[in-house]
């Protein structure tokens, strides 16, 4: 069968009652009426959901909202679920691997930031460090438990570390502006945190019976505004309300 291009036009929140071709006495829709006159006009078709995003998601996938779980407008249909670091959320092992690597970094970073010459930054760091210790404790325990758990949990947490490892290099890179802030004693010398970070992560991975992933590959550019394709989905979700309801206030 030859591939065919189809153009689907879907009007948003458009009730059949407000179309000329369905007999509304006042509403004029001459273009849509012409399309209807030349084609097939359904009189008993029902949407899978009376809410726009679930309706479109069901339409696009050919599946019901209860199957694809796009229940309302807060769940944009995009084919994937975004999360921190704008990588697909994955499973619990992905979440814990990512969280652990960042928690180790955060504790080092806030310890450094507490010495900032900027009083506000130092105050924020003094507060954040206390919370970060709880975060690190939790993710570290999970990494150990999953790594040293069943064959399945070991496989998943190892895969999670392998997948996220290449994104960690950027945590320790700085540009010229940040370098000048480091020189002024305001920002943290992040490249200097790397050795301690590696040592800590390594010791936990060892205890969790996990291999340290291959350090060769890396994804870089986030700090220069170059992002992965996953960022688009994340922004779509974050901007949903403002785009769906321009100028909204509450």
């Amino acid at each position, binding site marked *: 069968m030859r591939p065919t291009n189809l153009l689907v036009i879907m009007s948003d929140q458009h009730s059949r009652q407000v179309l000329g071709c369905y007999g509304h006495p006042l509403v004029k829709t001459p273009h849509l009426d012409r399309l209807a006159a030349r084609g097939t006009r359904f009189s008993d078709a029902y949407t899978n959901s009376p809410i726009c995003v679930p309706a479109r998601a069901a339409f696009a996938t050919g599946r019901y909202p209860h199957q694809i779980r796009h229940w309302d407008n807060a769940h944009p249909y995009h084919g994937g679920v975004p999360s921190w670091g704008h990588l697909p959320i994955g499973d619990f092992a992905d979440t814990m691997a990512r969280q652990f690597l960042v928690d180790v970094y955060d504790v080092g970073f806030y310890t450094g930031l507490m010495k900032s010459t900027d009083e506000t930054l130092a*105050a924020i760091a003094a*507060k954040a460090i*206390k*919370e970060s210790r*709880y975060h690190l404790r*939790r993710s570290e*325990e999970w990494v150990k438990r999953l790594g040293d758990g069943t064959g399945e949990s070991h496989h998943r947490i190892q895969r999670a570390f392998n997948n996220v490892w290449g994104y960690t290099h950027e945590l320790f890179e700085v540009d010229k502006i940040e370098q000048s802030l480091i020189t002024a004693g305001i920002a943290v010398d992040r490249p200097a945190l790397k050795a301690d970070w590696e040592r800590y992560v390594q010791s936990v991975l060892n205890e969790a019976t996990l291999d340290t992933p291959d350090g060769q590959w890396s994804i870089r550019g986030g700090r220069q505004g170059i992002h992965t394709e996953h960022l688009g989905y994340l922004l779509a979700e974050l901007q949903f309300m403002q785009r769906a309801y321009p100028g909204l206030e509450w």
Partner: protein
Amino acid sequence: MNATPNIAVTAGPGNSEIERLEVLLEQVTDPEIPVLSIRDLGILRDISLDVGQVTVTITTTYSGCPAMSTIKEDIRQTLSAAGYPDVQVKQSLSPAWTTDWMTPQGREKLREYGIAPPQKSGQGHCAILSPGTAVVCPQCGNENTECISEFGSTACKALYRCLECAEPFDYFKCL
């Protein structure tokens, strides 16, 4: 860092008025733990009065605590209803809030409410961070309890279970 709460009193003839403000602010509670006033919680840092203008300084508990804007609004409304239309609420960052500032009455209210109060972190006995420190069940008073989740209904709490009376309960973590 572990200083006791210091309610500063502005110099001048307004001292008794500051005391009145303190009493009024007892009505302002944490919207997530309504039995605790902001003073019990130790987040009320300062009250000052200057020619009719009241300045109340508060600090946050856990970073990003969603209750802060409600608390600020409640302070303004409470004082406004008591005849102080000119109220400024300031938020201080330093020194960082610690659960050690929670008053003894506040800890007792928490326990009665069903939340195990935090230990004194200054003494190095924080459950979760210092293993071996018991969290006492707020229902039956037993020490035979276990942690179910280190993050509970809010980031500042952990979820525990009593192995004696079998009731689950929240524990307010030391910070």
